[in-house]
């Protein structure tokens, strides 16, 4: 974008894809500076005092959720490649994922609750897989 004689401008089509992102990036930078200028005391205070991570975090459940989710996402296409266009990657990966996630979130790991968790882990993905891949004819991993 060339400001030939303000307010007149001419836009070169070859580089037009950069005009708006550049303007938005500049605006974002200005806003960031404005936030830092008006809130630097609060930001500095937060960075220098107290725990940086939210206090009272349940490390096992939080990081367990992220780790299981990443493993789930990695496993789905790998299994799915073994059975192309069947959606088995989703089905087979979802059963242990649901079971482990429920187990992670369970507060009282008694035999009764574990059985409920296991039954749910089998039934829920199977129903979803059947409904989506067979009834609604949707693509699953």
């Amino acid at each position, binding site marked *: *974008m060339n400001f030939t004689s*303000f*307010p*007149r*401008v001419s*836009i070169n*089509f*070859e580089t*037009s*894809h*950069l*005009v*708006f*992102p550049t303007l*938005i990036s500049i*605006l*974002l930078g200005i*806003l*960031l500076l404005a*936030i830092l200028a*008006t809130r630097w005391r609060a930001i500095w205070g937060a960075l220098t005092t107290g725990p940086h991570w*939210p206090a*009272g*975090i*349940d490390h096992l*459940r*939080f990081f*367990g*959720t*992220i780790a299981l*989710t*990443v493993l*789930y*996402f990695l496993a*789905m*296409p790998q299994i799915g490649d073994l059975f192309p266009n069947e959606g088995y990657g*989703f089905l087979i990966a*979802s059963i242990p*994922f*649901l079971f482990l*996630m*429920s187990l992670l*979130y*369970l*507060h009282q790991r008694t035999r009764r*609750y574990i059985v*409920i*968790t296991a039954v*749910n*882990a089998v039934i*829920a*993905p199977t129903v*979803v897989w059947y409904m*989506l891949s067979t009834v*609604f*004819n*949707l*693509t*699953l*991993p």
Partner: protein
Amino acid sequence: MDFLSLITPLFLVLILCGTMIGIIFGAIPGMTATMAVAVCLPLTYSLGLENGLALLLGLYVGGISGGLVPAILLNIPGTPASIATTFDGYPMTQRGEGESALKVAIFASLFGGLFSLVVLYLFAPALADFAIQFSYVEKFLIIFLALTVMAALSSSMLIGIFSGVLGILVSLIGAYDVSRGGNGEYRLMFDFMEPYLSSGFSLLPVLIGVFALSSILIEAEAGVPENAGARKIALDQGKKFHLSVFSGQWKNLFRSASIGTFVGLLPGVGGSAASIMSYSQAKAFSKNPRSFGKGNPAGIIASETSNNGLTGGALIPLLSLGIPGDATTAILIGAFTLQGIQVGPLFIGDNLEIWNAMIVAMLFANVCMFAIMYFAIRHIAKIVTVPKYILLPIILMMCVVGSYTINYGIMFDVWTLLIFGLFGYLAYHIGLEIAPFVIGFILGPSAEIYFLKSLESFGTVSIFFTKSWIAVVLWVLIAISIGLSVWMSRSGARHHDET
């Protein structure tokens, strides 16, 4: 009356199912109407637009209404829109009048929903007819206005604007769309990302990530607490429900429904603002303001009428201007896009049958919501006891399905879900505003096209001020929204200093 042919038994069954599932989602603390619509969106792929919208609108109305159940019974708003329902609903439950409080809220929800539906039916076509005159200049200014209004009503204007602009920047990643007049060149990414991000991040995985997955991460961080108080709920030990509770409440009903509908019109503001504003007004105009917060049904009426008033209001800018009024209607854009239909000023005129079918769907969804909740309230009250260790993994699994199927099976969309889930979680902790971010993300590509095409056509920046009287009016509205925001933040800071 051709649209009557669209209203098939399947259409009605889908509304009923959508409303029921929406109520369940709304009734579970932490689950929202937005999440319900996002998770069920993949089901609409094979349903066709009318039937798909029937399901989604049912979910929307049911999801907003279901939030009243835990708000009243557990003092936990099931959805953000039910925040003010807790103020008087829970004290009534503590007095043993839980069932009465629930029924007051259900009637109020029905009134709010129907009021906003009438406004939607009358107002959206008129606004769309007016908006047809808009050129690229006015369309850009409308988006600019939407962003400033949204930022002005955020908890901090600076943070709100920053979040919205960040959303715009993220939406620009990928190629400058040739189909919309761009040059097809990539920007804001490295070369190795081209196979994944040539069209940028997909809308639905981004929305599901920031709304659903981030909520699950926040729950996990808190240790996934169960609702311990849910088993001790006393529903009907006190006064029984009677319609006489509404006598003298007509002004409250109309005022709250109007506030809810108006707030729905404003992009990205959300139901919690509508709920609190209506509650404050009901308290300010009450002859007995001291009874608010201690179990006054008028407080429940104000909150619930306004949050259901939001449903029709939020659809007005979506269907007449193509700008979503709230997060849930933002996801509805995905449903239209899937069916190859663009929402905007031409939508109603070009798709009259779909428009009429939507009105019927909204009407029927409100009636279904009322019937299901009023007659099955005792069973619905038990939903709040469904354990999260069962629900959250299922929700996460459905998020994956929704993300994967949006582009007919692209695994990168599933990773997008995780990326934006983590982003939503971080945004929650560092104080970024998600609603402006999402609206910015949705409107960013359109804003770019309208801005550049205006400059290419007229060759001068001054065209944004001189194009038409509409442009001048829009600038006045932009100035008012910024001025209002500055005034609100200053008076808020002064009030804070005094207390």
